[in-house]
């Protein structure tokens, strides 16, 4: 099932929850909608499920108008944040519900439903829990039931709203892998909402990064990692350092070194550079190029160590170095700092046609 979302907009009062969102999910694809709270990701999911009506835009499923259908007719499997299991029904009744409520003409025979429930219990790896009530299950088990219940109707689309939000870290990682396995086994087109970038990157074929009701970037996790489209994308997808810089022709100029810029900033002028701790390099040689800094703290265990540096200007930068490199340095040492790549944000553009005067060293 190919899902096409075209120009969806939705306001709540004066608050624009969605400001024209377009995307496409290919058949069998696993998309994650990633963004901070208020970015519109949940509203988009509700629109797809039929729980909210958009003010503008179209949604097509394999070319058919999806918005014309009611939530009841859409046959989407929706997994709620708190799962919304029917508390007075056993796990088996919960899973069978979508089949049970079909009109007599299209309702499968009892034995078929029973068999289908068994299959789903096995798929979700909760065999033997069919007779329990939701209150008797752990959080992780409830989530499995919710997924199985959503899949029972053989949905055209599986939608999940922050399905790991209510779980502790260990269970979360385990269920993440389970969900991906279930997706791969069923091949159902899946859209998952999350605010956790690690989760989004780990699960998805493609990530849809949202902010303020708009899509910032769509891409595979690798693409997002390698070429973030905006400072927001760069910042949201990982830890960042900030240093003031000058930007000319796609190159960021610092005291003592330059770095190529990623993304779409084409303006020249004064601004700020954002970069990952893992892109920072330190050199102990006094003659080396780079920003002179002093190491003020070191921490971490294992293969990656963090090194905190402070420039003369007072700016602090944290670097992430492999263990063997970090071992060469000690707290208090003066070193030179360079950065492999940055995302630049020009805040004070220089007048056109007149390149900004370069810093001392270029």
């Amino acid at each position, binding site marked *: 099932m190919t899902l096409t979302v075209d120009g969806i907009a939705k306001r709540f009062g*004066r608050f624009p*929850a969605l400001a024209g969102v377009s995307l496409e999910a290919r058949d069998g694809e696993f998309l994650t909608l990633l963004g901070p*709270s*208020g970015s*519109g990701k949940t509203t988009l999911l509700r629109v797809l499920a039929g729980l909210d009506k958009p003010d503008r835009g179209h949604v097509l499923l394999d070319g058919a108008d999806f918005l014309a259908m009611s*939530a009841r007719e859409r046959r989407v499997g929706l997994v709620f944040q708190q799962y919304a299991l029917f508390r007075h029904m056993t796990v088996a009744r919960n899973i069978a519900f979508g089949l049970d409520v079909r009109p007599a003409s299209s309702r499968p025979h009892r034995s078929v439903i029973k068999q289908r429930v068994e299959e789903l219990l096995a798929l979700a790896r909760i065999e033997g829990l069919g007779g329990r009530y939701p209150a008797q299950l752990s959080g992780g088990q409830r989530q499995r039931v919710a997924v199985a219940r959503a899949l029972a109707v053989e949905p055209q689309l599986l939608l999940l709203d922050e399905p790991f939000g209510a779980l502790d870290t260990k269970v979360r990682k385990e269920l993440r892998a389970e969900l991906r396995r279930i997706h791969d086994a069923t091949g159902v087109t899946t859209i998952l909402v999350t605010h956790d970038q690690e989760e989004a990157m780990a699960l998805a074929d493609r990530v849809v990064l949202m902010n303020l009701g708009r899509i910032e970037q769509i891409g595979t996790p690798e693409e997002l990692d390698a070429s973030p489209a905006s400072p927001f994308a760069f910042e949201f997808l990982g830890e960042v350092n900030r240093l003031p810089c000058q930007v000319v022709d796609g190159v960021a100029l610092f005291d003592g070194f330059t770095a190529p810029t990623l993304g779409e900033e084409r303006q020249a002028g004064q601004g700020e550079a954002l970069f990952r701790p893992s892109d920072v390099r330190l050199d102990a040689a006094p003659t080396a190029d780079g920003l002179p800094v002093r190491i003020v703290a070191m921490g971490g265990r294992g293969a990656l160590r963090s090194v905190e540096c402070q420039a003369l200007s007072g700016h602090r930068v944290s670097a992430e170095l492999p263990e063997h490199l970090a071992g060469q340095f000690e707290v208090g040492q003066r070193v030179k700092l360079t950065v492999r790549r940055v995302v630049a944000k020009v805040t004070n553009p220089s007048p056109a046609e007149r390149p900004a005067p370069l810093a001392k060293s270029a």
Partner: protein
Amino acid sequence: MVALAPSIGARPAAWREPSPLPGFHLAFGFTLTYVGVIILLPLAALVARPWEHGLDGFVAAIVQPRTLAALRLSFVAATMAALVNVVLGLLIAWVLCRYEFPGRRVVDALVDLPFALPTAVAGIALASLYGPNGWIGSLLEPLGVKVAYTPLGVFVALLAVGLPFVVRAVQPVLQDLDAGYEEAAKTLGATAPQSLWRVVMPALAPALITGFALAFARGAGEYGSVIFIAGNMPGVSEIAPLVIVTRLEQYDYAGAASVGVAMLALSLIALLITNAAQVALARRGGR
């Protein structure tokens, strides 16, 4: 449990937030019709009626000594009974929550009896119990205490009627009150009365006020359980609802409605005062 809630800052643009759940119009329409016919329309008739002889007519209907005395009796007796019920209701709730004794569950269920017992039954039972020949009345008679057919009888009937309101308001709070709370007070050197007064009572105060308000509201309008024991002497032991009944028997609709509106207004004022007390209490508690 409102997951999938619309994003923050959401405000309904229309008078109703759209929902994919069906049945709103049917259910809401039925609700409004029912409220309109059963509650609003009759209430409008009540509020509109006293003014047919102008404001003067209303005032005249209220300031008659007999009416004033009846209103005073209903509201004063209700206040006093509710106050006593606050103390004894707390005692009963405390005993039911804190001590195990034979028959505790039966007693616990019995507290609700005045909720379920028809008021007329309570009325004739109290009248005959506290009457001169009743089990308790005959004991009190030699002491010179007359309960039945006096204002004291009104008070006793309201004690019985209001008791469960206080017990049921306090009980859940008392039950959830962390035992560690009192124990902490004890380890800090507080004596038992100190810990009760400084630690337990402030936590219970909102529930006690709620219980008081409910018992009072019930008592001020009470009819069935009172009229048998009260004796209904005009100006002495006649309660306000009985004045309404009497006026209706004389087809004085405006006069009856005037007393009804006055009772409603007094109840609302009492409600406002108890609400203000709750708010003041909450503010002092920093909540």
